[in-house]
């Protein structure tokens, strides 16, 4: 939506004009108990059913109930890479929502506000088109006056449906599905609210909008958030045991697995603490089938000792880390990418393990399967790093071919003649474990251990064996690095600036590349999904660029480099590798990335950096 009318922003009267648009960014601001996530959820699922691209962004207060909260949804007929820098529409339920978020609107954007709660400011009426509707009062009126305005979110959804000419039958169906199973009056009330909003004449509106039809997708679209995608990915991968302890924002995954796994014959155990959770998962993995544990923030610190044991004993395991702001209790509901170091290096001693970070919601599903398979093939713990942004945002993506991706990883207990789990003479150097319950005809049974050990797992103080076993644990991950695909640049493989990112930075980075290229700047980006080990040959990719800027949501630290930047500098000894970091608890805006990279390139040129 690129409407830049700045002059007469009040309606002249008459029916609004219909304008075709390819995408819209709608920010909904209210309090967390108002059901604003529900509005966003309906819009996202409608987009999925209409084969449109969609991405959402939300902030949740860390208070128990209530507090200001927003949900931003970007819907487009073409590719949507980020949740959008600036909004076309702000739906504001309260004065604070109005005042705090008006600056997120584009100049000339629409602010749709609840005139029962918002007193518009005259100085902003020139810049933004103001459309006031008595959302609370009209909602109460529509449902027939208990004096409560529950349902005003659905009323507002009706208004949005009108403004954006949304598909009413599809929305009605979504509302019916959402409230199915509840009292019939709940569905009836919701539909009444929706219809009341939809029939509002919206007298102060200049235009209504209509999306260009989206291109038909090859597969049906499925709509979910990153936590859901990751949990379902684990189920598809064959994981049937998990253990965890509640912590935000990881809890959604454990709740989902607790609810869903029994259908597949599996179980998820809520433990007394993080130490028990990781230990129980390791126990179940040892018992023959890769298990999962996970956490966020402080919970990951607590798990590190046990993860070190799994590295030493070479037990396959998946550990999910939904990163949030740190250190310590930090910023529990804010986004940050500051757990890369603990994921790669957390714990005492040399303990190489695998770290994977999906870039978006769809990748959460597939990365979970990949994590399980790497854990099994290399008999190693795998850390799966997502972040608060991916975890809670909703995207529509191609439904995976479940019949093809679902796998059986149940253990094989067939007897063997003899077995040395830590065999130093295997061709691939990878440890293979026997699940307990497997008979060993030679009568020599293996022990798994955190002590340095011989080939059967019995303790040894031999310096030679410690050297050899350290090499074994390290070399198998080197072998993995050769199996990893070398990532390709987004944009040409030569240019001025290469933006390197990981995790949720991918969308904004790609959009930054698109915008920079559109104005003639030679910018490309490289996204790394495999962070430990890194794929090989990255230096060949770096060769094509003058500058390599690593863009990540963490602190530049003592020496001026973010966590990935420091790892890449250590790996490649390339002084061109520089950092662009921030820790404001918010996702990257495309404009921020472009401004910061231009400034940094300038500073390097002028010798200031």
């Amino acid at each position, binding site marked *: 939506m690129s409407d830049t009318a700045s002059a007469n922003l009040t309606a002249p009267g008459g029916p609004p004009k219909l304008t075709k648009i390819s995408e819209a960014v709608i920010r909904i601001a209210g309090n967390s108990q108002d059901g604003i996530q529900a509005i966003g959820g309906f819009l996202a699922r409608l987009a999925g059913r209409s084969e449109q691209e969609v991405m959402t962004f939300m902030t949740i207060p860390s208070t128990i109930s209530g507090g200001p909260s927003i949900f931003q949804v970007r819907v487009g007929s073409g590719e949507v890479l980020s949740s959008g820098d600036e909004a076309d529409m702000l739906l504001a339920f309260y004065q604070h929502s109005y005042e705090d978020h008006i600056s997120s609107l584009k100049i000339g954007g629409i602010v749709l506000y609840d005139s029962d709660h918002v007193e518009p400011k005259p100085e902003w009426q020139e810049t933004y088109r103001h459309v006031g509707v008595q959302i609370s009062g009209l909602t109460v009126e529509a449902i027939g006056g208990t004096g409560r305005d529950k349902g005003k979110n659905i009323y507002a959804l009706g208004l949005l449906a009108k403004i954006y000419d949304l598909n009413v039958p599809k929305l009605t169906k979504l509302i019916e599905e959402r409230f199915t199973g509840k009292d019939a009056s709940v569905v009836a009330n919701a539909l009444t609210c929706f219809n009341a909003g939809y029939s509002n004449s919206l007298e102060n509106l200049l235009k209504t909008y209509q999306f260009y039809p989206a291109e038909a997708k090859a597969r049906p679209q499925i709509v979910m958030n990153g936590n859901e995608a990751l949990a379902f990915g684990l189920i598809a991968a064959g994981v049937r045991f998990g253990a965890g302890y509640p912590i935000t924002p990881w809890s959604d995954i454990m709740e989902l697995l607790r609810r869903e796994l*029994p259908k597949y014959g599996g179980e998820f155990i809520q433990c007394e603490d993080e130490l*028990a959770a990781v230990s129980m998962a390791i126990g179940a993995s040892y018992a023959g*089938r890769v298990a999962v544990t996970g956490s966020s923030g402080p919970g990951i610190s607590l798990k590190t000792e046990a993860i070190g044991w799994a590295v030493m004993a070479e037990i396959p395991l998946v550990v999910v880390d939904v990163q949030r702001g740190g250190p310590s209790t930090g910023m529990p509901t804010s986004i940050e990418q500051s757990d890369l170091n603990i994921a790669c290096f957390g714990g005492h001693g040399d303990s190489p393990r695998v770290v994977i970070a999906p870039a978006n919601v769809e990748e959460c599903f597939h990365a979970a399967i990949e994590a399980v398979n790497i854990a099994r093939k290399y008999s190693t713990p795998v850390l799966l790093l997502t972040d608060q942004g991916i975890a809670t945002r909703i995207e529509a993506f191609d439904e995976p071919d479940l019949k093809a991706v679902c796998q059986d990883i149940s253990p094989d207990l067939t007897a063997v003649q003899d077995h040395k789990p830590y065999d130093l003479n295997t061709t691939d150097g990878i440890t*293979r474990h026997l*699940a307990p*319950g497997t008979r060993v005809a030679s009568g020599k049974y293996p022990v798994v251990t955190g002590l340095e050990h011989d080939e059967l797992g019995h303790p040894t103080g031999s310096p030679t064996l410690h050297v050899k076993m350290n090499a074994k644990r390290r070399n198998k991950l080197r072998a993995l690095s050769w199996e990893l695909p070398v990532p390709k640049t987004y944009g040409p493989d030569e240019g001025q600036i290469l933006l390197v990112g990981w995790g949720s930075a991918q969308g904004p980075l790609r959009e930054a590349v698109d915008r920079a290229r559109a104005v003639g700047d030679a910018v490309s980006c490289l996204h790394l999904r*495999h962070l430990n080990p890194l794929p090989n040959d990255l230096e060949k990719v770096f060769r094509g660029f003058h500058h390599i800027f690593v863009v990540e949501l963490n602190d530049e630290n003592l020496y001026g480099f973010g966590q990935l930047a420091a790892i890449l500098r250590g790996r490649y000894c390339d002084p061109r590798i520089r950092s662009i970091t921030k820790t404001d608890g918010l996702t990257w805006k495309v404009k921020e990335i472009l401004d910061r990279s231009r400034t940094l390139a300038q500073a390097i040129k002028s010798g200031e950096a």
Partner: protein
Amino acid sequence: MTTIAIPNAVLPRTTRTSGEPVPLLTDADRKGLTKKEVAADHPTWCPGCGDFSVLALYFKLIERRKIWHEKITTVAGIGCSSRFPYFVQAHGAHYIHGRALPFASGVSLSRPDLHVFVFGGDGDAFSIGGNHFNHTARKNIKMTYVVMDNFVYGLTKKQTSPTSPIGFKSKTDIWGAVDQPINPLKQAIAAGATFVARTTHTNANHVLQMMEAAMDHDGFSFIECLSECIEFFPAAFDASNPRKGGKFDLIGPEHDVTDEMAAYKLADEPFPGKFGIFYKNNRPTKNKLEADIITNSRAKVKDLADWQILQKTFDRMK
């Protein structure tokens, strides 16, 4: 579309290597295991350590009950006694300090076909792992937990342990321990353990009797086994050893093992106290309760393959 670096197609269903096929052996074809067949490494314990008797009686239990190597899993944390798994010729795990119980819970809950035995000391059980002891007991996760209680930290050479009596002189309490010790039996009963017994390494028959009863109990069975540390707390248990002039008093037949209050009171007797089964009840295990949840959930999706169950869920997310 994401490319997956490691597809499942290249992986076997298990992480073990394939070798020569091994002929099937039915239980009827197998002879019971001898002590020689179940003993592995020679124990690292000091000569005269009480833990030797516990190990010998574990072997005896395996022999007598005809348990096959592969059907037992021996789990331990950290401590002198926790070296146990290396000395037993069976699948085993030597895990981290204090967390043997949750590890064993993972094995027990996912593998109902195995007997899970956990061995450890008083530091592992009641100090660093105290929280897990309470929760494993209350959840009643099926396993047998033998705590070889020596009232001292032995592996780190004589520091005060959570069961050291007041006045015990250690390297961390040179003037004598001042902290109230934990009473393992009271702790277990209060936490909701469903089988609580006490024995001592100097009475071999009794140890074996308790181990058998614990193994047969369907639930979390806990045995406190006094096990003397000859090096750092010698003579600690002489008062319970008739050969040293002490008395070994069995719990009498009048005690009702299902009476929690009576058990608690009995557990409160001053050292040397009583020996035998203090408390026992048949509350359903976590294993059973989880299995029931699975059965109920599966009833709604019966005849569907896993991918079809997931497909049904995805169909609702469009």
